[in-house]
C-alpha cells in the first residue's frame, strides 16, 4: 500500500481500521506498522473528525414504539385477511354469474332445424360452415 492510498482510505473511512474496506484492511494495517510516523499524522487528523461525529448520539425509540409497530402490522394482517375474504366471495359470485350466463346461452342456442340461423348453428355447434352448395335460399330452393 502506498502512502497516498493509505491517506485516501483514512480520508474516506476515518481512523478506525474496523471501518476500512475489508479487502484493504490488512495491507493498511501493515503500512501503519511499517511507517508509524507517516500513518500517525494521517490517523490523528481523521480521528479528531471521527470523535466530533461520534458526539452526535441519539437515544433509542420510545418503549411503546415497538408495540405500536406490531399493532400496525396486526391491523395490516386483519385488513389483508378481510380483503382476501372479499376477493374469494367476489370470485365465487363471478363464477356463479358465469355459470348462470352459460346456462342461459345454451338454452338460447338455435336448434338444428332452425333454417334462418342454420349457418350460425353450424358454426357454433358443429364448428364448420354450411357448404355453399347446400345453402337453402329464402324461396326454399337449394342453390
Amino acid at each position: 500500500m502506498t502512502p497516498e492510498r493509505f491517506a485516501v482510505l483514512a480520508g474516506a473511512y476515518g481512523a478506525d481500521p474496523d471501518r476500512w474496506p475489508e479487502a484493504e484492511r490488512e495491507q493498511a494495517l501493515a503500512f501503519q506498522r511499517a511507517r508509524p510516523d507517516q500513518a500517525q499524522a494521517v490517523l490523528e487528523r481523521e480521528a479528531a473528525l471521527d470523535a466530533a461525529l461520534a458526539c452526535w448520539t441519539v437515544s433509542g425509540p420510545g418503549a411503546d414504539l415497538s408495540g405500536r409497530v406490531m399493532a400496525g402490522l396486526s391491523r395490516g394482517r386483519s385488513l389483508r385477511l378481510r380483503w382476501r375474504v372479499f376477493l374469494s366471495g367476489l370470485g365465487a359470485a363471478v363464477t356463479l354469474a358465469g355459470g348462470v350466463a352459460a346456462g342461459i346461452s345454451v338454452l338460447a342456442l338455435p336448434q338444428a332445424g332452425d333454417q334462418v340461423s342454420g349457418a350460425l348453428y353450424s358454426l357454433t355447434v358443429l364448428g364448420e360452415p354450411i357448404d355453399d352448395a347446400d345453402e337453402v335460399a329464402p324461396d326454399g330452393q337449394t342453390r
Partner: protein
Amino acid sequence: MAIEKREAVSDEDPDADVLRRMGEGDETASRELVGRKLARVHALALRMLGDAGDAEEVAQEALLRSWRQAAGWKPGRARFDTWLHRVVLNLCYDRLRRKREVPFAEPPDQVDPAPPADQRMAQDQTTRRVQAALARLPDRQREAIMLQTYQELTNIETAAVLGVSVEALESLLSRARRSLRALLEGAEP
C-alpha cells in the same frame, strides 16, 4: 465497533429467513424483524429529520412496508437491509419536502443519557456544530456519512443503498469529510 458489522456483504441475506416466515404470516417472525430493525431505522430517521415524532412515524411506515414486501420478497436480488435503508431515506425526504424543512434545523429532541453536566454541555455544543455542518453538505454526501458512519454499513452496503460504485462512494465520503472538517474548524469548505 464490532468487526462483523464491517464485513463485506456475503451472498446470503441474513434477513431472508425471517422475511420468508413473515411472508407466511408468522407473527413471531414479524416481532423478530421489528426487534432487529426498529432501533436502526429510528436512529437514521431521527438524524435525518431531527424530530422524534416524525422519526417514529417514518420507522413505523418503513416496517409496515417491510411487512407488505415480505410475501413477495425475492432473495438474491438485493439485500433486505439495503432496501430498508433506501425506503427510510426516501420517506425522510418525502417528509422534509412536505414540511419544507431544512434537515437538522433544530437539534434532535434527545441525545443519549449521560455524562456530567459540563461534559454534557461541551458534547451538546459539538453535536450542534456537527448537525449544522452535516446540514450544509450536498444530499448524497450527507447520506454517505449517515449510512457509513452512523448506521455502520460496510462500504459495499452503503454503495448499494446509494446505487453507486464503491469507488464513487469513496469519493463522496472523502469530499464529505473534507467539507465537514473545514466547517467544524470554522473555515468554508
